[in-house]
């Protein structure tokens, strides 16, 4: 994936080729999430889905700097992280469908999509659950000393978990190659962030002396620049960094919420305001105005992405039901393996 950004060129801008690559991945995430939203509405998904629509620039801007050998952990809203890191959409959709050909053989589902061959340790159903796991992967990377880094995507909600403070401490103390990629998407489930969070999140990380950057999370170039500096620092052995990307969750906390919430918790006007700042639309406008691409080129990308989404959907629907005995094999404590 992507090019390695070293300390020397971290402040540079992404090339047109990189921007086009990021555009395609953001479009893929959007396409998959829209497909899943439709699938959910059609009653085709066995479980809940938390969609990443509106936040695509964060995962893509970060993962552009990462290799397969680097580790990431995601959140319950984790499809975007998986796809941005190079995960295959076909077994991801199959996983969400609970099929045997799912990336986790139907044992994990939407909140646990993982592909270790791509360094995707996995999404996580526990808010803040990825922080310590990432620190552990960063610890391993440190011991290996091969320049690997570990990135934790977590939300503003997770920043209120005690383990956030603990991992800020331990990663700084031990100089771990870890990046805290905080996605401030304005809501902690159904609660506006400012009703559950005191102070500025970056100040919490700043207290530990690590570099902290607050960026517009709907501007992929801004995310890319901050991520590049943080990844370069980690690869160089200079320790952790914190990035807060201010963004917005366009869809609800979960797709099912319209069925069980008795009242609304945000108004259409607010959502529309953020739609005007859509990260994909902004990148598209940038690509066109800079001459990096024309309408025909972007349309070609759009067609290609749609084909990929359709293929993933077909792959998922055609999959056999998950094994009903695998759970016993995987949870066996009978003997050493």
């Amino acid at each position, binding site marked *: 994936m992507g090019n390695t950004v070293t300390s020397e060129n971290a402040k540079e801008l992404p090339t047109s080729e990189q921007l086009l690559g990021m555009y395609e991945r953001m479009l893929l995430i959007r396409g998959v999430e829209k497909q899943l939203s439709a699938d959910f509405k059609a009653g085709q998904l066995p479980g809940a889905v938390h969609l990443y629509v509106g936040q695509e620039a964060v995962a893509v801007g970060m993962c552009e700097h990462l290799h397969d050998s680097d580790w990431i952990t995601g959140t319950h809203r984790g499809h975007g992280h998986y796809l941005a890191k190079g995960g295959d959409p076909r077994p991801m959709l199959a996983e969400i469908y609970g099929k045997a050909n799912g990336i986790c053989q139907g044992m994990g589902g939407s909140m646990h999509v993982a592909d270790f061959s791509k360094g995707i340790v996995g999404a996580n159903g526990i808010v803040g659950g990825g922080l310590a796991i990432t620190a552990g992967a960063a610890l391993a990377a440190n011991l290996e000393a091969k320049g690997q880094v570990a990135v934790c995507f977590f939300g503003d909600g997770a920043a209120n978990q005690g383990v956030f403070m603990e991992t800020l401490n331990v990663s700084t103390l031990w100089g771990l190659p870890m990046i805290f990629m905080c996605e401030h998407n304005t809501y902690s489930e159904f609660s506006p962030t400012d009703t559950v969070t005191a102070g500025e999140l970056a100040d919490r990380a700043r207290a530990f002396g690590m570099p902290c950057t607050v960026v517009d999370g709907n501007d992929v170039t801004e995310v890319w620049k901050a991520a590049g500096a943080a990844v370069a620092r980690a690869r160089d052995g200079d320790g952790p960094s914190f990035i807060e990307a201010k963004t917005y969750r366009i869809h609800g906390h979960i797709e099912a919420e319209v069925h069980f919430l008795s009242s609304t918790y945000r108004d259409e006007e607010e959502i529309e305001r953020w739609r005007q700042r859509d990260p994909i639309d902004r990148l598209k406008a940038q690509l066109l105005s800079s001459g990096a691409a024309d309408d025909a080129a972007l349309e070609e990308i759009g067609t290609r992405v749609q084909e990929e989404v359709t293929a993933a959907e077909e792959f998922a629907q055609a999959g056999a039901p998950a094994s009903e005995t695998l759970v016993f094999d995987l949870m066996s*404590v009978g003997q050493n393996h």
Partner: protein
Amino acid sequence: MAKKRYMQAINEALIEEMERDPKVILYGEDVEISMFGDTTGLLDRFGPKRIWNSPICEATLTGMAVGAAAAGYRVVLHLMFSNFIYTGFDAIANQMAKLRLMTGGQVKLPITVLAGYGAGSSNAAQHSDTPYPVLLNVGGLRVAVPATPADAKGLLKEAIRGDVPTFFLEATGRGGEQGEVPDEDYTTPFGVASVLQEGKDVTIVSMGTMVKPAIAAAKMLGENGVEAEVLDCRTLVPLDEDSIVRSVEKTGHVVVVDEARDRCSAASQIAAVIADKAFHALRSPVKRITVPDVSMPYAPNAELVVIPDANRIVDTVRALLAD
């Protein structure tokens, strides 16, 4: 064979496994100085890239074990007192026990968690628990409760070599106890109970800290003509159900001695297994000898009242046989 102390045997197991596999790493609170003596000398021997002190932050330490193991290391995490399992429980129950399943088997988690447990030293309620019942219920975790130096060494080596997250709970108060330990490289399998004493009249099932009072009780019973068979479970997950059932089929009477609180204890589980699989052989009810459902008091005299001892075992057995 040579006589060794319990903690010395654990220390030897750690040294041997760290020498055997360079991927074995060990961290935890104050492991460099070693409060219990089990990690003594490891820093000098293996250096700070293999063993190091951590901050006091169990929620992170348990989660880091998952991440480091998933990334290829064989992690030994020392939690000091086993009450701190509760402090680090989220990553234990929600990540460590479940990640292999949730990833469809993409990952193995070779993690061994060490912690001392048990009461009897006036450490008060927050440092005296026997917390394995919660671990037994999680699924996906192995639990070892060795009682002798030989089993401690063999089970720890087996735990570290395994790929399933394993809790190795040290009978801390028994750290000074001596026992014969084989000289050669050996491991002790999980899920195999040991019969410490054979007898035909009653079965005493014991584990960990309760093995010693069980043996003492058997001796007292023997002086009065009652031949007790004493089993040491050695591991609670997996549990050697067959050996327990076999013994009960022979004796027809059974008591289960456990330092956990009574409700949903290991003894409760073992009693349920006996009721299920050896009901035909029972000539009296299965009796659990456990800590009442209270937290551990501090005062030594108050503590002794709630911890099962040889007298309680003897009295319970006599009542069973008299009926």
